[in-house]
């Protein structure tokens, strides 16, 4: 994995994240993953939300398509892309506020659909761009440095919420463990369904509790049999993953759960549109010499009365 071998894009943006930001580790892991899997704009689109994490696609040194969307809505944009062009790999970068605050409805609904996409959540416990308010993943009672009072909300556990929402690949990583993150991302992108990769990430500017040292002292590599091999063990494997997800003294990172027995959404649509995967909306021929290709009579004759 030689970083210098990457095709440097001279149109890439100046990276304005804070020094020491966990995003750098995630950016590097994404770049290495794209490079190793030979993913670029021909086959992959990076979708992001709003916040520090949302800028990630702009900062990539790989020639990529980037769609920097709205706060909380990246999954919605991504689903539209994936539905009209199922051939595209869709990778989403979103923050914890993005995903579990303003966009939590989309997060839960995405689990019900199981579209083949990869969601990377940048989980740092704070809203960085707005100067450090508590995000939905910050523990109750914690007072990070710019909070006027300790946080009085209980946290969402992203891994557990993903599991009960129907995510079929659920993993957690640490922003500074690039090697682990790359290996998880490769599995997630290959996964036949929706994948959550929740990445614990220090915010050196606003989160003085969940620091690098905080995580380094607590994290350990998860080693469980996470794969559902038949439907009978689905609930058991989910329960195992949820139990692990709530461990707090020591924080496990790795893959918690995978189930490829659930049909993905594009294949569900194929049930209704038999040639969907070969002739999807993005490539259908609209017109010949500016004339619509739609056979009109088929539509009108259903309503004929005379």
């Amino acid at each position, binding site marked *: 994995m030689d970083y210098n071998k990457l095709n440097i894009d001279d149109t890439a943006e100046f990276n304005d994240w804070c020094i020491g930001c966990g995003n750098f580790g995630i950016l590097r892991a994404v770049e290495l993953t794209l490079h190793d899997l030979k993913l670029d704009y021909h086959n992959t689109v990076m979708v992001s939300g709003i916040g520090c994490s949302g800028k990630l696609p*702009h900062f990539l040194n790989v020639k990529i398509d980037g*769609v920097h969307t709205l706060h909380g809505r990246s999954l919605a944009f991504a689903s539209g892309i994936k539905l009209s062009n199922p051939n595209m790999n869709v990778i989403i970068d979103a923050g914890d506020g993005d995903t579990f605050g303003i966009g939590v409805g989309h997060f839960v609904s995405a689990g019900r659909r199981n579209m083949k996409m990869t969601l990377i959540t940048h989980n740092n416990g704070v809203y960085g761009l707005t100067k450090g308010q508590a995000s939905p993943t910050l523990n109750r009672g914690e007072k990070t440095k710019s909070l006027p009072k300790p946080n009085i909300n209980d946290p969402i556990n992203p891994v557990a919420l993903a599991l009960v929402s129907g995510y079929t690949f659920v993993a957690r990583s640490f922003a500074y463990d690039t090697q682990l993150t790359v290996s998880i991302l490769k599995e997630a992108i290959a996964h036949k369904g929706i994948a959550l990769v929740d990445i614990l990430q220090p915010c050196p500017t606003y989160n003085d509790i969940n620091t690098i040292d905080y995580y380094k002292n607590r994290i350990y590599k998860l080693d469980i049999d996470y794969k559902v091999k038949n439907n009978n063990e689905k609930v058991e494997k989910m329960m195992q993953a949820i139990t692990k997800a709530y461990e707090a003294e020591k924080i496990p990172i790795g893959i918690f759960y995978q189930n490829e027995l659930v049909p993905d959404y594009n294949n569900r649509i194929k049930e209704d549109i038999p040639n969907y995967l070969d002739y999807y909306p993005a490539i259908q021929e609209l017109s010949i010499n500016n004339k619509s290709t739609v056979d*009109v009579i088929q539509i009108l004759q259903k309503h004929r009365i005379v």
Partner: protein
Amino acid sequence: MIGGVQGIGIDTAAVIFGDSVAKAGYYLYGSREYYSTIKGRHSYTTVKISDAPSSSINNNVEILIATDAETIFQHFTKVKDFIVYDKNFENVELNGIRSMENEIALSAYNILSKNNLGLTCRDAIEYAKKKGVKAIGIDYNNILQSIINKLNIPSPLTERAKTMIGVGASFKLLGLSFDLLSSTISSRFKNDTIAKLNTLAAKSGYDSTDSFYNLKVLDVSSHRIEIDGNTASAIGKMLGGLKFQSYYPITPASDESTYIEANQNLVLNTSSGSKTGGIVVYQTEDELAAINAAIGSALTGARSATATSGPGFSLMAEGISWAGMNEVPVVITYYLRGAPSTGLPTRSGQSDLMFALNVGHGEFPRIVIASSNHYEIINDAITALNLAEKYQTPVIHLIEKSIANAYAVLDENKINANNIIIDRGLFTNNADESYRRFKINEDGISARVPLGSAAMFYSGDEHNEYGHIDETSSNRLKIYEKRNKKLELAAKEIEKKYKIYVSGDKNAEYAIITWGSVVGPSIECIDMLKKEGINIQVVQIKMFSPYPSKEVSEILKNKKRIIAVENNYNAQGAEVMQLNTGIKATDFILKWTGRAIAGDELFDALVDILKNNKNKIVLDDEF
């Protein structure tokens, strides 16, 4: 008019009646009114039959088919010729009807007591009779019982066939042959027993009266279809190459999306032969997801749209702003219902025009089209998809509930469906290494390629030609102007016929300025007013953005009086006219009850304005 308790098949009955009349060569326009509930409250459909196309109804009806007592109490003052009703309801008292809203009961009470009548259904019918209405009382229970005995079926099955008795009777009044009705019934109901049951019910009604109107069967030269406005929009989108439709369930928009889904596999005549092209219909978790998924889909090159009404459109505002910023062709079909808030969710209105024109924070081009009838809905849906791609910006297509839920008979050859032009503007699949999505050029429109064909960025942040975030003044100056001047180009390029439609004598001294559902009744008033010695022209605004300022100024420059007629409080269409042209309406006819403006009430109001020199009339659906 046919009325009854919601859920017993009023709508089906009206469609069967309409289809049968249409088979005899007549046009019809049928408007539905119903409560925001599934079952149990009063709903009714008004069907207007004519030998020329019409897009309006009248408040006063020739025939009232009442399947329950409430229908009689709600409408007995508005009947001109016949009331067809169930004899068993004669003794029902006004105050015994719990489902009726107090205000309506009180109005009925006032009329009845003023005329020294009692408070039963029989009294209401008596009132109508004194005004010359003929009452046709039929013993519905008796008819249904004999059908139950004949077919040996359980009695609950027959409940929904009640409506057919009245349909049969009024069909006889028209003087049309029973075959027309029975053939419609048999094609409507696939289950044999149900078809038989409904045919028998209709026949009993048919045999219980004599013919009155003596309608002749007319010659029909081309195929005709019967659809409602939701279906018209769906058909227009499908003809126009729609490939992706997202939606969240909401009245009165959802029917459009479910129609597309039910008919999603279309035959396409492609350059490599006949192929099936599937339209993806995506039911989302909310309208935020609906608009943003449609935008995402549009980035792949698929023609994409969503459909909603007021509350959903409010949620879409942020997404529409993103689409404006990122020059995304996306169509939002915006069904107008009674607002603000949940408002009158199953009723109509024109109160969201200003919102549609200004939706989303910031300045960016929004093209806004308003349809006035079913033909226009089909054509405008196609135009919307074309303009969205041509000018790479959101297009909002306004359709009022009153049209969306109205049935109409259309001539196939007028739809011009075999000659549908697809204009994708600067869309291409080819881009070279130097591609810039937002390349600045003279007219503001850059070549657009789908995701996957070049490295490109989109961002809701202000961006440079590449789509990367750029906050410099020099960039902002250029790229902001690039986006906004597309509307100036659109104003210049879009043909007049898409923007404005004028009817009546151009030398008329008076003009009506209006839009949407009000256009139909307005045009029908032209000839009626001529008989009163009044010469009036009707100016319909079809496109509110870009606004046909030059055309409106030219038409209205020598008018003595300009009457704004709208289904809202503020005459928003007139406000937009003033904003764009400086011309003010002189008089106003306004209605915000949630019901469409009817032809007869508009005529009366116009006469009142022009003969009695009033300046403003508020229409009230007065009992």
